[in-house]
């Protein structure tokens, strides 16, 4: 009777008992093995009648043993796992994560925005000749603006060498770009600049970005559009409003100071809206003399230039309020204001992180 056999299997209490039952039923001298052997002695009719029954019995028993075995193994595993508990509230190994400095991040943002407008990034030396830093930019010797810029001079390295200066602005790159690439020119030039000025809001080294366009029919209107487009993209707000005011820079004519509207959000001045104005950059149409100093014909080529503090852009966008902290290397500050490695500004993902 299969039921009786199945009951025997079900009654086993562990793998060992189950194995005994298996041997007793299916082993070499097992009960079912014996029945199978007996088939050989039967006449064909009896065998035809008995064989399916015996085979079915063997099948049922085999399955029942396998199931019983699996059940025992599962129970055994459960028992073992019950002893293997660990406290997963314990801390995982530390992983280190670094940061990108806000100035670098903003430079990448600028490169991305201006690349879309067709500008490339130009570079130039920080130790400059007075020609590139001043004279070529229409600031001849004794020009009051030349003194106004609080210039760092370098000791001559050989007697009689005209002292080099630490560039006081990124504008010398205008001349270098003009000389090296010719027109038309669409570039931005970010980098370090230096003025001998140090107080709560000024550091002797800071960062500027220069924008410089030379082409055939560029007007003040293009400058206005470019700055509007740039600032809206940079601050990621459509309510950025600009005000251009006539001003004076030796290297541009006409010249314009550019104010951006701010509004108060949670007690903090943010760019956007128009509750007041703050100065963000200087700009203008490139002075004919500067174009000539680029090696270009000012009757043929014209364009605009602008210059803007990168540190200040970062402060306005990301809310830092102390410029000096930019250059301290305090890892607490860097981890707070810095950017993750993969916060790469993109046009599709937004240039802000």
């Amino acid at each position, binding site marked *: 009777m299969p039921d009786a056999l199945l009951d025997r299997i079900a009654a086993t209490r562990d793998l060992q008992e189950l194995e005994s039952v298996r041997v007793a039923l299916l082993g070499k001298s097992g009960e079912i093995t014996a029945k199978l052997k007996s088939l050989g002695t039967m006449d064909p009719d009896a065998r035809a009648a008995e064989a399916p029954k015996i085979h079915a019995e063997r099948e049922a028993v085999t399955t029942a043993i396998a199931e019983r075995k699996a059940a025992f193994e599962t129970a055994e595993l459960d028992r073992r796992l019950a002893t293997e508990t660990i406290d997963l509230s314990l801390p995982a190994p530390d992983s280190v994560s670094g940061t990108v400095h806000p100035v670098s991040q903003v430079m990448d943002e600028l490169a991305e925005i201006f690349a879309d407008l067709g500008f490339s990034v130009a570079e130039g030396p920080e130790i400059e000749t007075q020609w590139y830093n001043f004279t070529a930019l229409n600031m001849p010797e004794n020009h009051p*603006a030349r003194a106004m810029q609080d210039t760092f001079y370098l000791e001559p390295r050989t007697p009689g060498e005209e002292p080099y200066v630490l560039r006081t602005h990124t504008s010398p790159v205008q001349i270098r770009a003009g000389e090296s690439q010719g027109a038309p020119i669409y570039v931005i030039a970010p980098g370090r600049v230096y003025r001998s000025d140090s107080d709560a809001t000024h550091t002797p080294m800071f960062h500027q970005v220069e924008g410089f366009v030379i082409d055939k029919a560029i007007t003040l209107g293009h400058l206005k559009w470019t700055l509007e487009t740039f600032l809206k993209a940079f601050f990621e707000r459509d309510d950025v409003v600009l005000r251009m005011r*006539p001003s004076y820079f030796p290297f541009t004519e006409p010249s314009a100071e550019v104010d951006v509207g701010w509004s108060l959000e949670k007690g903090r001045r943010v760019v956007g809206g128009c509750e007041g104005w703050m100065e963000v950059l200087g700009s203008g149409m490139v002075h004919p003399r500067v174009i000539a100093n680029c090696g270009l014909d000012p009757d043929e080529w014209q364009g605009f230039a602008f210059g803007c503090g990168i540190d200040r852009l970062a402060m306005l966008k990301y809310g830092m309020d102390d410029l000096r902290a930019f250059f301290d290397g305090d890892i607490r500050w860097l981890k707070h204001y810095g950017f993750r490695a993969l916060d790469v500004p993109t046009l599709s993902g937004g240039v802000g992180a």
Partner: protein
Amino acid sequence: MKFSLEWLKQHLDTNASAEEIADKLTAIGLEVEELSNPAEALAPFVVAKVLTADKHPQADKLQVLTVDAGTGEPIQVVCGAPNAHAGMLGVFGPPGTYIPGTDLTLKVAAIRGVDSRGMMCSSRELELGDDHSGIIELPGDAPVGTAYTAYAGLDDPVFDVAVTPNRQDCMGVRGIARDLAAAGIGRLKPLPVPQIEGSFPCPVPVRIEDPEGCPAFFGRAVKGVKNGPSPEWLQRRLKSAGQRPISALVDITNYVMLDHGRPAHAYDIAKLSGGLTARAAKPGETVLALNEKEYRLEPYMTVIADDRQVHDIGGIMGGEDSGVSDATADVMLEVAYFTPDRIARTGQALGLTSDARSRFERGVDPAFLEDGLAILTGLIIDICGGEPSALERIGHPPIEQRTIRFDFGRTKALGGIDVPEARQREILASLGFALDGAEVTVPTWRRDAEGPADLVEEVARITGYDQVPSTPLDRAPGVAHPTATRSQLSERRVRRTAAARGLDEAVTWSFISEAEANIFGGSDWVLANPISEELKVMRPSLLPGLIAAARRNLDRGADSVRLFEIGRRYLGDREHPTLALLLAGDRTRRDWQSGKAVRFTAFDAKAGALALLEAAGAPVDNLQVHPDAGPTWHPGRSATLRLGPKTVVASFGELHPGLQRTLDAPAGAVAAELYLDAIPAPRASSRARSAYAPPALQAISRDFAFVVPADLPADALLRAIRGADKAAITAVRLFDRFQTPDGLSLACEVTLQPADKSFTDEQISEISKRIVAAAEKLGAKLRT
């Protein structure tokens, strides 16, 4: 440049409000930094009449007044002023008023038992003067109940305008009025110039010996003047400009300077010996200036001197010894033209700023000497009396009639703004330009206007930059093209790889101290005018900045500092883009799993250097390690990484322990410096990669252990093994290193990749033999 609305209206006929004027000034390029009204603080004070004045019942020195302040009700006020009396008119502040001179807010209070409901005020209490001997007494016709500020003409807004360096003409109120009139704010009034008839020859002869520095000197004496306080209107205007009234003669010269941008100087003739000469200073000559400081002069500086001494640093500051005083009876007036470049150079060299310098160095109107002197003389005679001498007119001011041929279409072509030609002509004419067809003659006071671009600016700024239409740049069709150069891309990748590897990016000063630089081989670039010794020379290495930053972080309690910086090293030949990284403190902190804290080793620096070099596109498999990083590194625990024998692309290792003493470097700090501009550009290749299919057959690995000579670099052994069969051996990895009694044992796992058929035992045996032979050439022995 500060001035009041009342002053402006001397030159400008306008009904515009102060706010409208301020907005317009900013819009035309004369930025108003502040519009203030000193009267605002005094708004609550009214003219009041003292009706009765009786002795205070409890105090001898106090009186009890009843006051009519125009409210209809008499007000009781206790007053301590000795001059208070019935019938007088004064200035009354009701309860709740803030008294600026005492910094108190009035309250209704009982003073010695008598209620006082306000206060009659002294000049000092209103901060209108120093007088505190009694309350202000007003003339009998002062209208009771009206605002005192309105009655006294104090309600006069003050503009503070930032004048750009090109606009000398706006360093005087009249120039500002002219700009405003051109911009449609009122009408410029004609300028009355008095006719001065000299009744005697000028008693002080004038000579010019330095015509380059001082091409013109117009002068005149005025005899029999009476110096003293200047009149109230003049004092008020000077105060609005932020100047302290001194005496009539000084105030008048200052006033003419502020009114017309025309500096002048007055000498006390009694203090001069002989005539006045404009000459070059003698080497080493000194002068005591009006600011009571002594200046040493150089021959390129122009001075005004008499026979005995220097009296004036020409165009910058007068001398103390010949200044006018209350005793002055006879004055010599100087209205000169000083050459702007020379003034700028002198002022810069002496570090001396003055109102005169700021005007002369921008270039004063060379055609306004005679009129300026006449206006000055006229004011002196009006205010101080006296007899003018004949005009002494020496030299010729450099009056240049500059003409610009102007295509009015340039306004649209350059300024982007469409202004009808007639309007352009109107604007230029109102600014003083003379127009004759396309020829535009620049007024003598506009030294800055040189070419058509300047005229475009004049038209554009007076029309308003807000009228400039925002015009999109032409855009190339399609998606924007990539613009970054190889080195820019490489720098971006290196930066973000460093951050991804756990390093924080710092930006440190490009200049460091000379002491720091000397440790790193010295700097080729020394600042002539550093702001401090700490920031004196251009860095030859990025490490001093990072060492200092790491030190600060550790001192603030950081356990672990991982910093990097990408910047330039400033060497004699040029500026070299460089990356430096510095690791200090704990590599891993003590931990419940890993145990004790682990410090950084030179291999952490090596791993960083290799990862970043790879990010920079360097062929890292070809790098060779040379133990020659230099004197700032631990001599046995540092190396350079080279491509070929000459190209050093990086140094790395443990910093020299001596830097702990010299630079306070953290103990055990490791670092790397990557010379980004030394990394060769990878060969240009197309976007498509070389063809590749993963091998069908599985690679096998075999281990080899060698006993090697103590001084054999492990890298040499690995390269030798790799070279034993370049086709079959695809990787060699060192996995064990220990000392045996026979020497140093290095164990390597060699990966062999079969091509189209599995290796036979014979082939493997053959490769093994070659590996052993290659190692033996280096003195290594296979361990058996």
